[in-house]
């Protein structure tokens, strides 16, 4: 059922059996989910952000739930690129799904070095550059808030790897299309968006931030309307494919992104709420295609019909 071909999509030269991936930082290194479903059901998954060296992350007090969402400041705790290659990948050789390595450097050189190390790794289908993490002080969001830096890091990684390069954009900017264009010009193969919005919650009795890091990234259904709009804007701006993320919990949510212009989607926070959320999204998309007689889900991509000019009375 899940493999029925009506859901197949192509992104950056790669075939995906369906347009549903799971988002970086919400799916561990994939292994943790094998107890819930075969990873081969997925279009693919994005690893937790990998840095050159392992990182321990921020102090306890890393998450806080908010209305229809959550704040996180994990501080990119991860096993490092070598740890991933040596300790995690050997267990993934038979997972039969596309693995996207989400990577993060503090400098361009680090980004390039990580890309080089992953380049020979067959099991990794593509790189997703996280230039948008709000939770570390160096790197991350710095590359994502200055279009020249964005261009530079993308171009550098592009020339350091033979794999498709996806760039994950920050929504915390005035005009995301500027960054999308910079990525396209620098040779990116796809744009993924959105990463989280910077936010903050306060314990009003203690008068202290809920997170040890003071601020964190807001994810979940709360931000979905913002993400859908940004995906639409980027879809209208660039020619490379767009991968939509932000508050997707079910097939209806995923369809919003596809119709807005996303070639594929990623399920994030919903994996915490229901470990099988991504599978439900896939099943729901197939059901939708059946009900609406859609033989190829690509028909839906960018199919939003917008009414002509609204008129205002004065």
């Amino acid at each position, binding site marked *: 059922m899940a493999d029925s071909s009506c859901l197949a999509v192509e992104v950056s030269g790669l075939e995906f059996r369906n347009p549903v991936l799971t988002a970086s*930082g919400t799916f561990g290194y994939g292994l943790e989910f094998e107890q819930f479903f075969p990873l081969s059901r997925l279009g693919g998954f994005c690893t937790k952000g990998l840095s050159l060296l392992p990182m321990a992350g921020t102090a*306890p007090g890393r998450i806080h739930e908010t209305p*229809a969402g959550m704040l996180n400041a994990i501080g990119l705790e991860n096993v490092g690129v070598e740890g991933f290659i040596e300790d995690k990948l050997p267990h993934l050789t038979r997972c039969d799904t596309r693995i996207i390595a989400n990577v993060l450097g503090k400098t361009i050189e680090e980004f390039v070095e990580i890309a080089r190390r992953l380049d020979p790794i067959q099991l990794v289908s593509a790189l997703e550059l996280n230039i948008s993490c709000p939770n570390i002080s160096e790197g991350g969001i710095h590359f994502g808030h200055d279009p020249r830096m964005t261009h530079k890091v993308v171009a550098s990684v592009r020339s350091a790897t033979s794999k498709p390069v996806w760039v994950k954009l920050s929504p915390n900017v005035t005009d995301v299309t500027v960054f999308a264009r910079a990525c396209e010009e620098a040779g990116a193969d796809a744009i993924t968006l959105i990463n989280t919005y910077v936010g903050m919650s306060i314990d009003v009795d203690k008068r202290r931030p809920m997170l040890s890091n003071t601020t964190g990234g807001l994810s979940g259904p709360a931000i979905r309307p913002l993400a859908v709009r940004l995906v639409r804007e980027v879809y209208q701006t660039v020619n490379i494919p767009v991968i939509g993320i932000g508050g997707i919990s079910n097939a209806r949510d995923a369809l919003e992104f596809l119709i807005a212009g996303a070639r594929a989607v990623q399920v994030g926070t919903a994996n915490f709420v229901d470990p099988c959320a991504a599978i439900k999204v896939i099943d729901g998309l197939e059901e939708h295609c059946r009900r609406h007689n859609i033989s190829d889900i690509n028909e839906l991509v960018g199919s939003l019909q917008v009414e002509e000019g609204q008129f205002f009375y004065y």
Partner: protein
Amino acid sequence: MAQVLEAPVLQRIVLPRDNFLLELEAPSMAPEIRPGQFVMAAPCDGLSLPNPLLKRALAVYSVAGKGGAPSRIQLLLKVIGDGTRRLADAQPGSTLGLVGPLGNGFDLEAGKGRINLILAGGIGIASVLLLAEQLARAGEVVELLYGARSERDLVGISDFEKLDIPVLVTTEDGSRGEKGLITEGLKRCLERFPREHLNLYTCGPNPMMQAVSRLAVEHGIPCQISVETKMACGFGVCLGCSIKTLDSYRLACTHGPVFQAETFVWEGENPSSEDTLRRQAGSSSSRRRTGLSHG
């Protein structure tokens, strides 16, 4: 191997002070539960979005079933905020979405041939009934020290008494048992029993567990604590539930929720490297040492 399932609510018992007992039909999960493990739970209400969004961690209080393998699990919960409010409202006939069993649970080996003191504070009692049951069944010596604010906050005592486990109650207002904090009870036990024969387990509010831990570490008594943190997933992927130990951050959900008191760093504590060394030394020695008394 954790499972994802929808478990019908069979029974809902209203207890004093916003405490509730829910019994669920979960034949595939119930036999898998080890003492100290937990589930992530939320009601299935047919809405397109759960509210609150995230499930809540709940210890498995007990498992039950007629003959053979247990088929039902019991959750004991106290209403704190929206998450527990909604769970407590679940009526028989409705279902809960569960992920579990999760976490490593208590190390029962440590209790072999020891006098096992279980120190529960408030709703912390929910994490230790299965522990007490299995220790008792294995023929170990077990006593429950149970502290709460007041008599009406005490829940589940009869479940321990049914197992013939002595229950020593302390209440802050003296409405039942000894008046005072549970640590007073513990201090008296330290006088009653040879320390080198003791083994502690504790679950309750952080300040209580911190006090218990301090006493245990001071006296070189092994002590397992079951900690509570905010959890988004419960199975090790959000990395949100980290706690501090002397040498690294650890995940409360997959590395815990049970940790050794000796290596656990409480919020606000900032162990100097000296402390660290001392405690690490203490910790390894307390494990090796058997006949030694600190006086």
